[in-house]
């Protein structure tokens, strides 16, 4: 009765192998590496950069373990710190000929030392939380109210322009918080305006009220429109933060939304909070200017003549120079949206832009006189301008217009992103901040590791002494549990923090309960006079219901922590919940497998090594009644 079919053993062996493979990368530690990422919003890296890095390293006769393009950066791993430093200098010299205006950021970094075959299996080490490796943590509150106010402000302008276009006379348009109020003198105009505004601005809902002799229309954003405004604001802020944080060259920045209106920024390895804040808080500005197409400017482009008075020379993204007038036509403040899309007729990728009412008026005046000319859209960061795009004006433009021509869909979305990346959609405040020194992190790892190790050793020693062979089985099952837990955490690429390590320790301490229950049951069956094989069978069968019940209640507590916890509590809860699930598998299925393997084949089993089984006088201990 105590035999497993072959497939169950196969399952266990597979689980063991998978557990080993995915746990393994955590033991290799980290090696020095150099990371090359883009230093400018307008510059995007691709896989060609990896080859270029390889060439530069080869020229400097430096041997990298590997060079790979990943995400938005190229990483090269080295055997020692010396090679890493030399590689950084070589790459910096080759990639950034002008040190005052670097195009690329070359930063020192750490990469896992685990061999390539493991990485190709997606067996990667766990991330270490900030408390274990040091770094800066910010929690930022996005001011949603001002995002809505900004939107209401833009809408107010739009309404003014719409009413003027249709010659509907109003007695004043005002913005009150997030509401827009329009006053009218007579009923007829009100009705006409209501139809017009309802058609043109579907995001608003209108209510009518008498205001003295006037009639007042109050428009407020529909809830779903307001939610859309907030979602875009958060998304845009996150994009902007990403662009800025890249400059810190930090290894794995985490920028995530938390809740409806918060953003978490984690910068491992960064210690200088002031500089980090400086970079996060920096604003970039977008400017729209005309391109100078005069003969003098043409000469300046080829280098034959000087740059004409009142113009500046910029370089386009494809490298060709451009002479741009100094006068600013529009700024990013007037640009309300930029989205990639496709042209209705030609199906070419385009970028469609929306400017507010003031912007639309300026665009109209400007483009009417300048059809056939080029305008340039420039992004200013750290006081330096870059041309994002310089399209030719084809016709008179209004509040909605598009940029088209020889773009791939990816280029269109990049351009749209850059146009929006200028500034934050809504201001942010830092409401929580943590800085953890790297030595403190290393100390925390060691402390956590020691806690688990010594605790495990104590339990293992006790179990082996008290339950003999069954204790050994329980210990192996507990070790298997630890292996599975770490493997699952590595597979999920979870971030391990100190509370997470505490959860591992606690989960192990609690997981032994299942094995104690089983072993006590088997002893009890033996005490009751059952034959050894029957005792093992019944012991496992009867303990199972109890194990399930007790684990479910613990899991409920874990899930509640997961649902309502934040930060450290969440890290604790994830590990705790996963640990309960792996412990059910290892304590019941795995330990049974071992016992079956050992005892199952012996037909005439006389005794089992489960420590002393003491029998009271009466055969059934409680049958006194």
């Amino acid at each position: 009765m105590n035999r497993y079919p072959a497939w169950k053993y196969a399952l266990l062996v597979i689980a063991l192998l998978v557990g080993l493979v995915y746990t393994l990368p955590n033991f290799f530690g980290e090696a020095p590496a150099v990371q090359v990422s883009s230093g400018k919003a307008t510059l995007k890296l691709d896989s060609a950069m990896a080859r270029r890095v390889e060439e530069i390293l080869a020229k400097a006769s430096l041997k990298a373990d590997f060079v790979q393009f990943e995400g938005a950066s190229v990483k090269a791993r080295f055997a020692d710190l010396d090679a890493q430093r030399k590689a950084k200098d070589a790459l910096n010299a080759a990639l950034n000929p002008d040190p005052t205006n670097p195009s690329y950021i070359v930063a020192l970094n750490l990469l896992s030392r685990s061999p390539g075959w493991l990485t190709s299996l997606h067996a990667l080490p766990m991330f270490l939380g900030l408390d274990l490796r040091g770094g800066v943590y910010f929690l930022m509150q996005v001011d949603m109210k001002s995002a809505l106010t900004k939107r209401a402000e833009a809408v107010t302008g739009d309404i003014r322009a719409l009413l003027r276009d249709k010659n509907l006379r109003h007695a004043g348009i005002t913005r009150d918080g997030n509401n827009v109020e329009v006053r009218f003198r007579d009923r007829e105009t009100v009705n006409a305006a209501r139809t017009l505004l309802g058609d043109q601005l579907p995001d608003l809902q209108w209510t009518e009220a008498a205001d003295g002799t006037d009639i007042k229309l109050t428009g407020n954003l529909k809830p779903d429109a307001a939610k859309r405004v907030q979602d875009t604001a958060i998304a845009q802020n996150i994009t902007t933060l990403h662009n800025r944080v890249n400059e810190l060259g930090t290894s794995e920045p985490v920028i995530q939304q938390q809740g409806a209106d918060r953003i978490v920024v984690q910068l491992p390895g960064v210690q200088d909070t002031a500089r980090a804040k400086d970079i996060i808080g920096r604003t970039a500005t977008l400017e729209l200017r005309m391109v100078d197409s005069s003969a003098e400017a043409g000469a300046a482009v080829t280098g034959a003549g000087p740059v004409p008075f009142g113009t500046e020379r910029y370089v386009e993204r494809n490298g060709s120079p451009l002479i741009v007038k100094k006068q600013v036509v529009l700024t990013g403040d007037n640009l309300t949206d930029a989205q990639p899309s496709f042209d209705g007729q030609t199906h070419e990728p385009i970028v469609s832009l929306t400017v507010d009412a003031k912007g639309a008026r300026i665009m109209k005046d400007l483009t009417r006189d300048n059809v056939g000319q080029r305008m340039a859209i420039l992004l200013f960061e750290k006081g330096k301008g870059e041309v994002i795009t310089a399209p030719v004006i084809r016709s008179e433009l209004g509040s909605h217009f598009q940029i088209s021509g020889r773009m791939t869909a990816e280029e269109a979305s990049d351009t749209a992103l850059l146009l929006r990346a200028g500034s934050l959609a809504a201001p942010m405040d830092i409401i929580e901040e943590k800085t953890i020194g790297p030595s403190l992190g290393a100390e925390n790892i060691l402390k956590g590791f020691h806690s688990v190790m010594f605790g495990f050793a104590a339990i293992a020693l006790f179990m082996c002494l008290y339950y003999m062979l069954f204790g050994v089985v329980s210990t192996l099952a507990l070790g298997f549990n630890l292996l599975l837990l770490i493997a699952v955490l590595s597979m999920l690429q979870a971030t391990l923090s100190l509370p997470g390590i505490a959860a591992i320790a606690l989960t192990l301490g609690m997981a032994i309960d299942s094995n104690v229950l089983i072993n006590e049951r088997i002893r009890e069956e033996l005490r009751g006079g059952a034959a050894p094989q029957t005792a093992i069978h019944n012991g496992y069968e009867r303990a199972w219901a109890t194990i399930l019940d007790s684990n479910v209640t613990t899991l409920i507590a874990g899930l509640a922590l997961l649902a309502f916890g934040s930060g450290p509590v969440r890290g604790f809860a994830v590990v705790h919940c996963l640990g309960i699930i792996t412990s059910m598998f290892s304590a019941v299925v795995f330990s049974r497998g071992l016992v079956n393997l050992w005892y199952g084949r012996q037909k005439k089993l006389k005794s089992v090594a489960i420590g002393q089984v003491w029998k009271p006088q009466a055969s059934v201990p409680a049958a006194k009644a």
Partner: protein
Amino acid sequence: MEFFRFSRDIPFMRHALVFNVISALTFLAAVFFLATRGLHFSIEFTGGIVMQTTYAQTADVEKVRINVEKLNFGEVLVQNFGSSRDVIIRLPAAKGVKQSDVVTSVFDTLCKAESGTVSTQEVRTDKGEVSTRPVCSASNAEPVRLQSVEFVGPQVGRELAVNGAYALLAVVVGIMLYLAIRFEWKFAVAAIVANLHDVIIILGFFAFFQWEFNLTVLAAVLAVLGYSVNESVVIFDRIREAFRRFRKMNTHEVIDHAITSTMSRTIITHGCTQMMVLSMLIFGGPTLHGFAIALTIGILFGIYSSVFVAAAIAMWLGVKREDLVKPGGTSKELDPDDPNAGAVV
């Protein structure tokens, strides 16, 4: 080896009243301390600034306190953290002052007190990571080092407290539902009452000794709730089984039997968990200290409450055989140990 040899059931329930009085008194004491002293919440809940510094020599906590108080940032708390060289400084969340300015000026003051000067330096760790941070240097030495800075705005804290309460509520409701479905509502009520009393007692200890109550302690408290309910479940499981097996025993005796036969498992399991927790208490350092303490108290009172309180409450609530062994149907077939089972003539 076998520690526990019970030749007959221990009559726990005969003394149920005494145990209930003891736990009622402990519970009242805990509530009293919670009400009078209150919990010493960490800045995660209250908002504020915490700076952790390490001195090269043993730190003079009193001197540090006097120096920081001179800066007038409000109520300052200075204490050792872990070793005599580590000092932790707590400041309330200052209104109108940028918190980075507060940190900079405090660190400046500490550095000057050690006759050093603060400069921002690029530091290279042994792993090859480069970071810049403010460094206090005095004649080629680093008398004081800034290990970590934490700043929490007040609105975050309020949310944490609310979420903590929700989590507690979710645990209580979830466990009660599960137990009511799996066993009986009387057991559900008994288990929750017994284990909430554990939670209150843990909080009472934290209030009495004014230990810091932070997020990890909160996690520990909720984990204990799940853990000690698990203890009650094991006993309830036995009670149900004993009701089925020993038809002649009355409720008293059934509960006594259930507790006695799980005693060995209870002590060994908790002993093992406690070994792990003890290991955290010894090796885990100051960050895990509160966590481990909360668990230790939780484990000890968890045993007590499951054994003596939960079962007794279930008994007062009038648990009967009929509640667990479903009437109707042939009960003989339900009984796995009936020697005549299946022998139908």
